[in-house]
């Protein structure tokens, strides 16, 4: 054998080049798979039970007030074709509704997740960039300019279709209507309120001046800078209801947080009794077969009420146990004979 300089072309002897890197070589052996299934099964059943029980304990109250169907609880069918109509929804709580209670409105068959709907907005506008006030993004079309060719701010379908029913809740105590205070602060995401949306800088100390030359969305009764004139921190693009609406839903049936009940006598929840929800009925849904609902709900560590997750965990956990049994039988009975090669 020649040595030394004759082996210039010899490949390097490293674990990498010789494909000898130490490696973990797992294999689906019975000793791992079957106990693994049992453990996963048991854990899933445990989690499932916890989820299911928690979910069961969450109290909810759901009422449809669209008014398409006649109902003894509300008179909103009167409002179907009437502008600025007020109707009332009465309900009774047989037992205390534990607080904090959240009040939601819900829409169904409303395609907030439609692509064309979803893109129909201008994030630059909403970020307070006034250069986009005069020429909104093309995606806003046809809610970009009004008929007189004035730019719409906030432009686009999303803003234009903002939900505009309003609610106030009264407890009926001895024939007296006692208003349940609603807390509308901080119902939107912190990031939306503090980062994603910004009002344009005030011009001459007035927010309204910043919007000069623009028009409000066609469906809106008043411009964006008048959404909440009482509270400057809740006005303009930073209006909590506006923020909640602008966060488009993933599915055509959705609910959105409207108010929390955390104050006063109702901080611990809604005591049992009769209630009346007064609804300022504005929002048209009948045309597209939509429904409007209200929800009262409290939450737990797993969020709102959702049976699905708990049941799914239970089912899959049980399946795991069953499969582990099947596999055990298969292993015991048909395990291949490793004697022959």
């Amino acid at each position, binding site marked *: *054998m*020649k040595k030394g300089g004759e082996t210039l*072309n*010899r*490949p*390097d002897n490293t674990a990498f*080049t*010789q*494909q000898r*890197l*130490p*490696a973990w*070589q797992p*294999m*689906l*052996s*019975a000793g791992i798979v079957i106990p693994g299934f049992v453990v*996963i099964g048991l854990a*899933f059943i445990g*989690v499932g039970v916890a*989820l299911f029980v928690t979910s069961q304990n969450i109290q909810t109250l759901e009422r449809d007030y669209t008014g398409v169907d006649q109902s003894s609880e509300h008179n909103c069918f009167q409002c179907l074709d009437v502008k600025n109509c007020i109707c009332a929804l009465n309900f009774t709580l047989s037992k205390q509704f534990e607080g*904090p209670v959240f009040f939601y409105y*819900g829409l169904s068959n*409303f*395609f907030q*997740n*439609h*692509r*064309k*709907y*979803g893109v129909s907005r201008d994030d630059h506008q909403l*970020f307070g960039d006034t250069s986009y006030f005069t020429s909104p993004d093309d995606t806003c079309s*046809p809610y970009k300019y009004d008929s007189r060719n004035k730019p719409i701010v906030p432009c686009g379908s999303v803003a234009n*279709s903002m939900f505009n029913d309003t609610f106030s809740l009264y407890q009926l105590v001895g024939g007296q209507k006692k208003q349940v205070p609603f807390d509308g602060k901080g119902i939107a*995401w912190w*990031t939306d309120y503090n980062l*994603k949306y910004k009002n344009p800088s005030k011009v001459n100390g007035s927010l309204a001046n910043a919007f000069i030359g623009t028009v409000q969305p066609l469906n809106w009764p008043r411009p964006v800078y008048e959404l909440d004139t009482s509270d400057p921190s809740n006005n303009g693009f930073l209006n909590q209801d506006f923020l909640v609406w602008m966060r488009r*839903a*993933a*599915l055509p049936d959705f*609910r959105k947080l409207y108010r929390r009940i955390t104050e006063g006598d109702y901080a611990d929840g809604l005591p049992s009794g009769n209630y009346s929800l007064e609804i300022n009925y504005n929002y*048209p849904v009948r045309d*597209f*077969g939509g429904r409007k609902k209200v929800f009262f*709900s409290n939450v*737990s*560590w*797993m*969020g*709102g009420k*959702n049976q699905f*997750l708990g049941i*799914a*965990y239970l089912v*899959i956990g049980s399946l795991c146990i069953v*499969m582990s049994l099947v*596999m055990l039988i298969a*292993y015991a009975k*048909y395990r*291949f004979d490793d004697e022959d090669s």
Partner: protein
Amino acid sequence: MSFFGLDCVRKREREEERRLKANDRDYNLSFKYATNAIKTSKYNAITFLPLNLFEQFQRIANAYFLFLLVLQVIPAISSLSWFTTVVPLVLVLFVTAAKDAIDDINRHRSDKKVNNRKVQVLINGELRSEKWLDVQVGDIIKLENNQFVTADLLLLSSSEPLNLVYIETAELDGETNLKVKQALTVTGDMGDSVTALAAFNGEVRCEPPNNRLDRFTGTLSFAGQKYPLDNEKVLLRGCTLRNTEWCFGLVIFGGQETKLMQNCGKTTFKRTSIDRLMNQLVLCIFGFLAIMCAILAIGNYIWELEEGSKFTVFLPREEGVDAAFSSFLTFWSYVIILNTVVPISLYVSVEIIRLGNSFFIEWDRKMYYERSDTPAEARTTTLNEELGQIKYIFSDKTGTLTQNIMTFNKCSINAKSYGDVIDYSGQRLEITEDMESVDFSFNPLADPKFQFYDHSLVEAVKLENTEVHAFFRLLALCHTVMAEEKNEGDLHYQAQSPDEGALVTAARNFGFVFRSRTPESVTIVEMGTQRVYELLAILDFNNVRKRMSVIVRSPEGKLCLYCKGADTIIYERLHQSCSKLMDVTTEHLNEFAGDGLRTLALAYKDLDEAYFKEWKQRHHEASTALEDREEKLDKLSEEIEKDLMLLGATAIEDKLQDGVAHTIEQLAKADIKIWVLTGDKQETAENIGYSCNMLREEMNEVFIVAAHSPEGVQEELRKARTTMKPGAEDTFVSKTILGNTPKIVADETVSGEYGLVINGHSLAYALEPSMEVEFLRTACMCKTVICCRVTPLQKAQVVELVKRYKRAVTLAIGDGANDVSMIKAAHIGVGISGQEGMQAVLASDYSFAQFRFLQRLLLVHGRWSYLRMCKFLRYFFYKNFTFTLVHFWYAFFCGFSAQTVYNEWFITLFNLVYTALPVLGMSLFDQDVSDSWSFEYPQLYVPGQLNLYFSKTAFAKCVLHSCYCSLVLFFIPYGAMYDTVRDDGRDVADYQSFAVLAQTCLLIAVLIQLGLDMSYWTVVNHVFVWGSLTMYFVVTFTMYSNGMYLVFTASFPFIGSARNSLQQLNVWLTILLTSILCVLPVLTHRFLLIQLQPTINDRVRLKVLQAKAAPPPPRRRTRIQRTSTRRSGYAFSHTQGYGDLVTSRRYLHRPAKPRSSGFTPTGRSLVFNPTGRSAGYSPTERNQSPKQEVEATSLQMYRTRDMSF
């Protein structure tokens, strides 16, 4: 590019005859012949970008993505931002362009190197050193020894007598033996006189440029005379001048028009079966994509009618868009969204994986041959996985299975056998490298490379044993070897067959040194004293005689006939007194043959002076007879070669390469069929078949097909088949006649083992369309097939035949130019490097130095590559389908509006960043079992041959699996998020949170699936998998961070969604549930499959698990001992001896000794180095015979005869 091409074509059409005048540049320039500059590069700095892009977009995948990009620019359709396509496309284009650029730079470099070589050109009456690229047609150039031939030249004159030049054509056809070219006398007379050459004004008219290496026609007009020109007067570019001091040549073709360049045309682009399958699948996927989009478009139409038309309050339609138009737009929008089912990164990833595996082949130390310092080379990087699917191997013999080295191994002299090493107890020892070999220092002329281990023979020589001396004297005298002695004692033998060289070398070492010869004498040094034997006659070898004899007169005046030949032939001609010796020698011969050695019997006869004189007279008459000359000569030989006295026998080992038998055994275990296709004689081939264990004594039968008529061949084949499988009917013949498309011939199983040996003549008939199926069927039933005496064309035909009728992957392995055709024809060509020229290697896809590396290439690298590629494809399709189908399900909930589920950035980065590396890691490093286990269980190779790991069914399973997973991935988050809220009552069922949830689920689920698929977790894999997961979270949180939103306001609208949603416990519970639910059925299925239907793979892996990292038992590499009684009826490996040449006066025109003669061994092998192939076919030589005229030199005569077997 095309401009040049067109130009060339036009010119070639125009040029029907080439006319040129020597030393007349102005005249020659008027024809605009190509100069000698070559250009193999494709681009230059300016044309690179447009040309390269143009080429890249010709690929269907790239064009498809360009099309998508165009779609995305249309606002009405654009469902995804432009960057989702642009980023991957640019990356892919960039990587490919970079690779092309590097390739082209290398080509530029090599072009430049070649173009700038210097050569002496005769310009204006003086020799000037010029660059190659400046040489023009019609120039006269001077070449010196060992220089490359600059262009295609007409040889004018040379330094050698008779205007001969010797050239090596290794670069052209791979043969290292020297060839002779001869100039016309009229030009040769000019010699090296510059004035004469400068005045030379000959005009050449010849054929236009073409690629035929073996043909040249033209005329030279000079001084009013016309001279015909043929191939013998032309030096082709690519050859090397050898053993010739100088020569002058006239440039006929330059640069691109040389035959070398015309020949290196497009190499056929090989593609693997996986490639083809992949393309089919991609087409299927396109179809699938179209169907999905159509469904969704219809869905959109219905939705627009039912819902959309009413929903216009909040989502008004654009002008002019009705439901039908909207559904049309939706179709294209979904084409964009669902395009990820045909992932652009697929092709790139496949290339990267193949490249990686090619590197692993090149890096493999176990395929590195230290002796010649040759590592394995993957010359093609696109065929790796096919190495794991080989079903048929076609192997050359000489130089591939054997080393083409003959060693004198044993001999039997006067009833005593020499050559075995016996230890003290009388046991035969196996000869190993470190055993002490016989010391030949007593003999200053001994060849130092010669090895012999039996000391008793050299003792016998020293003791002056008469028979032993006679034995070696015979070997030193009876041959046609030519000696060359450059320096005193530095002997080089030039033998036509390596066997003969080995015998003469043996005699040389044992003290009977053949030193030189003249036509009339042979000079040998016998034990130190120089003796000159008068050479009276050579009765040369041929195929019928199977023996050769010489008649010599010793210095003492004794007449003697020495004969060597095949034992059977010699035995018939022995004197009766030898019968006892015959018996013992026969025993020895049997023993030698049993060891697989090639044997010769040696005999001598003292001749009576008077009888010889009379015989010689008759011989002379016969040799000048005009009729039946051959017959008469044969008769005369027959007459004198009788009553011989037996001397003994020699045994020569046609050295197999190391580990050949073991490799063949292993490959056979892997169910790979090996066919040997050799140009050698039947006996040689059979012998090798036995010695490398392909043919075995215990085989039921070895059929030999050697008929000379089509009917005979058909009969023999049919007989063989009915013997193997009685009652098998001829179903296939009719079928193939009926159908135009070739049918696939199914494998037929036979009980018992059979072998088939077929020779070239019969093969020619067997390969005819009427009989090929019959041949194929018979051959495929046999365990071993050996085709001997086949031409290179037939080799390719056999490969093509199997390719055509068997759905099997073929591999051809060879080392010589005669293997090029089959290497190119087979799916995979392997070249043995470092033996015999480079042509085979240049044509090959893989090359390495030793046949035994084939085992590692296939069983380890091939198998792994196949496994990895299949795993990759299965996983990749799974991953992308899963990824994409979620959009499909979501469509039903978003009004078929082409709304994506995931964030656009996630779509952009999913294949490129989040999952690219883990998949690549798996596909580069995965191994089911280690290499040593792969060798231990060659059966692991079989699934590859059967296409088990990736097929249409496997693909369908992947799709089903993906459907399931995508359903889980959509509906579990859907169920979990439906109408739910955060634990602080706020929104979490919004689109952005849902997207984050769905994409996180998806990523984790596919990574878990990857983990399940991956059976070999190296550090790199861990880093890749965990790194990618980390990367996902880092990138996601970064992209959705405050800073990013503030800097690029609208680009990352998902601000905060990661934070808000991933801090929720139920989100994580959903992720856990989804990912577990995705893999549970897979786990169960796999586990049950392993239990109920374990594959060979599972079994071996279980064994490995049991062996727990302990290495497999050491392989039993015992030498295969054969107790064969088979005798090789074998004599020489060549067809016709050098006899004519030796006795030819012309060859020895000048004294042989002082100056270098025509031949120098050029190789560097150890024992004996023949400069030619024993059965040398060469594509360039085949058609020369008719051209040989009486003028031919004797050396050429030998060559022509050699070819006319």
